[in-house]
């Protein structure tokens, strides 16, 4: 019994250690790879970012609409429906935008990264690169990581913008909130700091989601079942990590 606990703990430590070493390696080489393999990075920005835009835009539109509906229904009771814009805008910019974008990213781009790298491993493509004296971490892993890191803030910006538009459509066009009040209230209440909080979050989430996806893919067991499991784990672990970090960042910013 004690032995099993110890074994599990040691296994955890080993995995954790390997993970930290991998992360350090990725971070250390990232700047050089960014410049020396710029075309590969751009290709991955396209794969992770551009190909995720449709799902991000559709989700943003509806999430913004829902926020406006909920806000309006509650604020109306206090005759404060003019502040619908503040509610929807704050929620989108500081919380919902970065978090939902990260969750959608994990489902759309993270899984693609993990399964692609895992399959390359399962079909010996990574070993073949090793044998051709090309480091797969620099050629395969880091460009994908950077692609994700660059895409996430951009996707978050798209999500939030479309979300605000969605909220506008629902609140102003449908529910009849005064358009001037809607935008002016939001503009007055919103500080640069609030916007920055959202941007910081999107950067952190971009790093987390991309790093976990490439880690899971690179360390997948090279079989069909192993790659499948790595793909699932990517979504699950990223979602949990993003939500925990979201809480920590919000706490850190609010308690300052």
């Amino acid at each position: 019994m004690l032995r099993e606990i110890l074994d599990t703990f040691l296994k955890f430590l080993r995995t954790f250690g390997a993970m930290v070493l991998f992360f350090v390696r990725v971070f250390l080489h990232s700047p050089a790879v960014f410049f020396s393999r710029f075309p590969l990075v751009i290709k991955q920005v396209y794969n992770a970012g551009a190909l995720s835009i449709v799902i991000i835009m559709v989700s943003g539109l509806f999430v913004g609409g829902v926020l406006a509906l909920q806000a309006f229904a509650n604020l109306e009771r206090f005759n404060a429906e003019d502040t619908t814009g503040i509610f929807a805008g704050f929620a989108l910019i500081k919380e919902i935008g970065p978090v939902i974008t990260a969750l959608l990213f994990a489902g759309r781009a993270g899984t693609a990264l993990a399964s692609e790298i895992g399959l390359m491993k399962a079909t010996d493509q990574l070993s073949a690169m090793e044998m051709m004296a090309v480091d797969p971490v620099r050629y395969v892993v880091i460009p994908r990581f950077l692609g994700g890191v660059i895409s996430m803030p951009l996707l978050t910006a798209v999500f939030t913008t479309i979300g605000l538009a969605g909220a506008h459509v629902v609140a102003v066009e449908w529910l009849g909130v005064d358009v001037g009040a809607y935008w002016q209230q939001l503009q007055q209440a919103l500080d640069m700091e609030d916007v920055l909080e959202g941007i910081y979050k999107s950067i952190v989430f971009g790093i987390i989601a991309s790093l976990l996806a490439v880690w899971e893919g690179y360390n997948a067991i090279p079989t069909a079942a192993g790659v499948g499991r790595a793909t699932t784990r990517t979504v699950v672990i990223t979602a949990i990590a993003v939500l925990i970090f979201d809480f920590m960042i919000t706490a850190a910013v609010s308690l300052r």
Partner: protein
Amino acid sequence: MTWSRKLSDYLIEVHDVDFARGDRSIFKNLSLTIGRGDVTAVMGPSGTGKTTLLQLITRQLVPDKGRIIVDGVDIASLSQSELYKLRQRFGMLFQNGALLTDMSVFENVAFPLREHTELSERLIRHVVLTKLHAVGLRGAAYLMPGQLSGGMSRRVALARAMVMDPDILIYDEPFVGLDPISMGVIAKLIRQMNDALDLTSIVVSHDVREISEVSDFCYVIADGAVAASGSPDELNADTSALVEQFMHGLADGPVAFHYDAPDYEEQLLGKARGN
């Protein structure tokens, strides 16, 4: 056997290597040498670690004990950049070709050139088409790997393995899953490339007939060590039980047909013990 050769005639020397995966010992005191300019076959029943041996020689894996010397250099002592320099002298053909799936055949073969040389586009095109022509697939240059048959993938991979003009070509199970014609083509290519380009080739396989035709020297590996070695003719004439079983494909012998199991009768008719 020609043991009279000088030591420097050996391009690769494996000395007393032990290697284990987890608790499972793969090699125990394995020693063998690969002659310069030879086609050396490494044969053995499935699961004896033939592929592992290739990974050890190219330092994709590190042995638990023992030394591996390539062209006079102990590869354990190399830094990563030195190792990568050494690997440029190797060409390796993986079991399934291991072509990069997001590039065309042409780009796959050009890949090592683009990574390691500053050749002009014109020259790259020239070199790649020459190599593809050598394996008979110049016409397939602009297909994607997904459009190729198994035998074609392996020939493209061979062209890619040769494109940097390596000194050593390593083939991991080049015949598995191929039809007889493709098998013959690959066997012919192995011999031709080796002689025309002055290479040293290592072929891991268990296709005894094909490999006997093209190799100069063979090792049979079993139970973690060299069970027999010699020219194909010598091995064919070998009467030791294991070599005979292997060379002639007998179902039972020293390599048992049955995986280790409890006593058959007892397991089927066992008393009510829940097994």
